[in-house]
């Protein structure tokens, strides 16, 4: 259920970003919600479930964006593994301390993907602009805290079982009896 809920939430966030948050095709301050989800998955979920969630998400992003398929796959998976590596080494696991890391990784990964695509297909992308990317990075940082809160709620909701299996489980009658 966690996987399904996060896929739905991810798709909704992408749709939100590409419709309501972008009044015009050249609108700059559209927050990249998907990257916050990538960061959340890297910090909070296990590898297998994260990858299952990321596959449909990057597929949708690639379909909705640009001319080079696979750009978002590269961006999201790079970001995911980078953050996962960092999260394993971080002494604190609080979101407020992780926000700068998320923002910086977004900038670094975007730049790396831009350079890579520029190497493969020169002149096919809009020229890199530091200030524009810094604006986007700030938006990612601003969105991180409320979205992490939302994702925590989604995860909490998803882990709530519809059937109380744990209550139905049979227990031995002498589990509290003192051993002789």
């Amino acid at each position: 259920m966690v996987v399904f809920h996060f896929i739905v939430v991810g798709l909704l966030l992408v749709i939100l970003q590409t419709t309501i948050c972008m009044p015009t095709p050249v609108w700059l301050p559209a927050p990249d919600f998907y990257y916050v989800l990538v960061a959340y998955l890297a910090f909070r979920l296990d590898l297998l479930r994260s990858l299952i969630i990321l596959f449909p998400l990057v597929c949708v992003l690639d379909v909705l964006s640009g001319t080079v398929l696979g750009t978002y796959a590269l961006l999201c998976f790079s970001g995911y593994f980078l953050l996962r590596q960092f999260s394993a080494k971080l002494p604190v696991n609080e979101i407020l301390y992780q926000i700068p890391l998320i923002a910086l990784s977004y900038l670094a990964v975007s730049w790396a993907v831009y350079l890579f695509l520029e190497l493969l297909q020169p002149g096919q992308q809009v020229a890199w602009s530091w200030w524009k990317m810094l604006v986007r990075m700030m938006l990612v940082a601003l969105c991180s805290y409320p979205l992490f809160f939302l994702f925590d709620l989604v995860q909490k909701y998803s882990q709530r079982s519809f059937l109380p299996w744990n209550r139905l489980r049979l227990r031995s009658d002498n589990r509290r009896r003192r051993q002789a």
Partner: protein
Amino acid sequence: MRKKPTRKRSDRYRLFRIVILAGLLMTLALIFLVSTLGSQNFGSLHKLVLEAVGPLQKVVTMSSAYVETFKSEYIDILQDSLRLREENKRLIQQLQENENILNKSREAMATNASLRKLLEFKNTLDQQQVVAAMIVGKDPSTTFRSVIIDRGSNSSVMKGNPVVNNDGVVGQVFAVTPNYAKVLLAIAPSSAIDVLLQKSRVRGILKGDGTLTYRLEYILKTAEVEEGDHVVTAGYGGIFPTGLQVGVVSKIIKKPRGMFHEIEVTPSVDYQKLENLLILQQPKLGEIKQMEQQR
């Protein structure tokens, strides 16, 4: 023993006084009756009574008027203000509803005007089959420029179809699904359109740079170009029809080196206000693709 004659005397005196007073009153009453009924004159007594009662009446009347004024000025105002508050609430609600209706009608009028322009433009395209479409999504990335439209192969939209609106060229269909299509905008760096300078008929390639301007490339330095020259589609290759408005030359950078001018073109289309688009169906496009495949 000595007090008895004194009490008797005082009792007699009291009786005498009462009799005298009653007689006086009766006499006065008789005089009043006789004088009132007899002469019917508003005599001195009446005047005296009136003079005595008048001030009292005046005080009472003034007090009542004052109370009335107080009531009308304060209590009624209070009631009125309560009533007015209710009325105000109702009117504000009504105003909001009317504003909503007005906004909706304004929006409908703007959409109507936009669609009317698009229809007029469509009518100018002789015998050209067109499909109207609406933008449903935009490109989330900062490095590409594309939009998603709500028409696809079910509406006979094909890859490569030119996309325009009433102001001019918008882009080209890049990918198609049965009900949706992705349009590569002309401002995208990967877009390239064959164009002509309308005045000098010099041919060049129009490319996007991701901002709200185009770059016009491959215009030889020997060619005559001026700021304000109109740029239109050349029609080579059979994809874009000839003469579609693209933009206006806004800046010419003349460099000492190189063979070509560096020219900036301001788009005729306002990319900030893109809503409804027309997809031009090219009958020759299928043939062109077949020829390309045969090669």
